[in-house]
């Protein structure tokens, strides 16, 4: 890697190298039975060069021919991507405890045992189809550049997931765990999910109209996606974010606090520097509903003439760094699930979202299929609904937060509590 830096530095003004390797093993049970055990060992290197105010990038999986990699990046310079931002200076960001060595002893056989235990327990207390999965990962990320920055972080991760499916559907009641070390699914979690599923078995046909809705953590990304799209440096710079001139304003309910927490090393992939070497810090995007921060990589920070926020991440070695919220969380409230249902009184529980990627995301609009939708009457789950949707706009609807759940759960886009909203538009066949 040092050789590559040396070769590239001779030919360019600024050089940044990103290297990443991942070893992962995953186990999957479907319908209560072991279905698949998969492993992967992937590594690669991304190279970024700047010369005469222009930027060139290239990548490789195998560092066999360093000269060729540098030549690819130099060739890309001719395209004329204009950039001349400063690379991260040499720094020693705070050490994080992102690595649990016990992850190395976690075998696929042990994960098969754990998933088998969960499947057997859920199978004994529900009639739904039970799917369970577990995966462990070991990652090494290194960033070095021509300014003298050179840092490496090793991380461990464990992800567990179980789901009880409604017949003929992939809609499910599900739970996820995510940590840097193995954690077994607790008996209470398994039982609670089974109880919710069993209570909702009956199909109901409520009427369309305005209703209260409880978004479970697994459905929250449908709403959070809109906020993330409006707070990235990219859409702010392009002047298409609806929030671009609203810094310091109340854009959502005061019950809502959205935090980016890269330093929380109880979670996997905790980072003290991002994929460009920028020092990371915990920060509020929304603080009690008030807009407090946009997030940037070095490219957009330079365009916007602000300090980079430490959110430059690559989705893969083949991708350029881009502003990304990798450690998102909504601060939890105080109510248990049962208390949230009581507060909901009558309305719908959004257990999962279908089609969250459709619609005018930038505008804050959403229109999602409920997958599943549970119907609540008298503060208790009465059954489930089919062919139903919730639609609205986050900048209107998120002002009507009634309450938040007390428990954070890992889900798509971050860790979220359940969120109870008032007066949403519900459409159904009934």
């Amino acid at each position, binding site marked *: 890697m040092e050789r590559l830096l040396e070769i590239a530095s001779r030919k360019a003004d600024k050089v940044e190298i990103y290297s990443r390797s991942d070893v992962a093993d995953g186990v999957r049970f*479907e*319908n209560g*039975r*072991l279905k*698949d*055990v*998969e*492993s992967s*060992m*992937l590594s*690669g290197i991304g190279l970024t060069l700047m010369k005469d105010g222009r930027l060139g*990038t*290239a*990548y490789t*999986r*195998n560092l066999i021919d360093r000269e060729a990699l540098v030549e*690819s990046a130099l*060739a*890309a310079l001719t*395209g*004329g*991507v*204009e950039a001349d931002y400063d690379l991260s200076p040499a720094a020693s960001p705070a050490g994080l405890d992102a690595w649990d060595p016990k992850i190395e002893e976690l075998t696929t056989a042990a994960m*098969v045992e754990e998933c088998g235990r969960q499947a057997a327990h859920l199978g004994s207390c529900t009639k739904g*189809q039970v799917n369970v999965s577990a995966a462990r990962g070991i990652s090494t990320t290194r960033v070095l550049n021509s300014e003298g920055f050179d840092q490496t972080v090793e991380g461990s991760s464990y992800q567990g997931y179980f789901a009880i499916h409604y*017949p*003929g*559907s*992939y*809609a499910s009641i599900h739970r996820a765990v995510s940590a840097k070390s193995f954690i077994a699914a607790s008996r209470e979690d398994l039982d609670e999910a089974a109880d919710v599923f069993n209570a909702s078995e009956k199909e109901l046909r409520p009427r*369309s109209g305005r209703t209260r809705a409880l978004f479970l953590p697994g459905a929250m990304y449908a709403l959070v996606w809109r906020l993330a799209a409006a707070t990235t440096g*990219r859409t702010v710079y*392009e*002047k*298409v974010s*609806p929030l671009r001139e609203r810094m310091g304003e109340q854009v959502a309910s005061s019950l809502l606090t959205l935090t980016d927490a890269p330093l929380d090393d109880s979670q996997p992939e905790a980072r003290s520097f991002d994929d460009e070497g920028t020092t990371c810090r915990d920060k509020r995007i929304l603080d009690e509903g008030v807009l407090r921060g946009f997030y940037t990589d070095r490219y957009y920070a330079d365009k916007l003439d602000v300090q980079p926020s430490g959110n430059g991440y690559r989705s893969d070695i*083949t991708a*350029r760094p881009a502003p990304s919220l990798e450690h998102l969380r909504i601060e939890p409230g105080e109510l248990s699930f049962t208390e949230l249902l009581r507060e909901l009184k009558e309305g719908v529980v959004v257990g*999962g979202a*279908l*089609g969250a990627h*459709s*619609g*005018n995301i*930038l*505008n804050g609009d959403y*229109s*999602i*299929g409920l997958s599943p939708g549970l119907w609540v009457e008298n503060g208790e789950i009465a059954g489930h609904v*089919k*062919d*139903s*949707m*919730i*639609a*609205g*706009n986050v900048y209107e609807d998120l002002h009507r937060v009634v309450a938040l759940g007390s428990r954070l759960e890992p889900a798509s886009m971050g860790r979220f509590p359940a969120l109870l909203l008032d007066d949403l*538009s519900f*459409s159904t*066949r009934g």
Partner: protein
Amino acid sequence: MFEELEKLLSGADADYADIRYEVKRETSIAFSGRELTGLSSSSADGCVLRVLKSGGLASVAFTRLEDAARALAAATANAELIGARLDEPVRLAKADVVEDEVRPALEEDPRERTVEEKLELLRGYNEIAHDHPKVATTSLGYTDLVREKHFCSTEGSRVREDLVTVRIAGGITTHEGGLTQTVRVGMGGSDGMWRLRGREELVEERRKLALDLLKAEPVKGGAYKVVLDQRLGGVFTHEAFGHFSEADLIEDSPSMREKMALGAKLGGDVLCIKDDPTLPHQLGRYRYDDEGVAARPVQLMKNGVLVGRLHSRRTAAAFSEPLTGHCIAEDYRYAPIIRMGAIFIEPTEETFESLLERLGDGLYLKNHMGGQTSGENFTFGAQYGFEVRGGKPGKMIRDINISGNLYSTMKSISGVADDLKLGEIGGCGKGQMNVRSCYGSPHLLIDGVVIGGR
């Protein structure tokens, strides 16, 4: 290359093993607004190894050849672990041993064009997209993707096939007052760069649409009778029905397997559906899948009756149904899974005008915004549409997401037009991406779908 791969396989202590080595070359160029924000041309490579042993089938992906022995050991151990827990051992349906080399017929091979030329092509379209004061920004990208695949197995198959995909895709965003609207633009294919030439009109039309949408009204939620255009009909076919035709998605769900039994009458007489990766000049074309099985056309539905299914070697054996050659991986990072190749509803004799007339009062919905399926339930978005009164399209509407149930919707399809169109841009994210997933349909008349709305 094959000698090296076969040498590795010869070390396998297994009932069957195969390996796929791939080089993936990619040129990508991106504009954000008028700024060029990315341009790169690189390649990467890696292997996926699969082992069948003691009744279990397992795979390992790796990118460093020095990890090969470790990968083989891991795949073997994982296969044994699976085999020990299965009631029914995994079997692979018998497939022909194939030795073949396939290069796609290309009109303008992107590998023979300079990156400067590709940049100018994209810049030209981006300028057209921007050509109005209310266009706030664009996000437009050029990609050409070449997969050079080498597949061999312990049965003696050796398949070398190249897949070349080109596309220009992105969005045009317009802005007025507090409102923004984004319209997708897409062009591309699997038979060369000529697909990206002379498409100025398409970009102009999409820009106009993004402007018109600023004036359109959000749709009111409820149940409607609708006509879907070919793109939406294609998404419906792919999302709602197609995924259910993939044997791996239903095999572990007893309730779905029962409903999807061959011979079941699921739709109206008017409904015939096929998946045919071998059709020339369409995005999803390939000769061999990533198990080295030759692709073939599969009749999935005939006059509303389910008559076929898409398979891998494993599921074909488990279902005792014929092989179809539909087991495909995104690239060298993934084991293959069952994917649609080119799925479409077959056209009838009825005209689009006749469908509108039969619609009477309802909605005419156009252009898809992506969809998702969850078992028998599906959701997908329409870019825009028109209210229809007495068979005449009127006021433009937007913010349309459709939700429904596969079985009831299939039965509600009461009209299929004569104007089949396959999409130039596909894409399906079933755990891994398949950018060549192709789908299409003629115009469809459906008697009642639920639309979310404010």
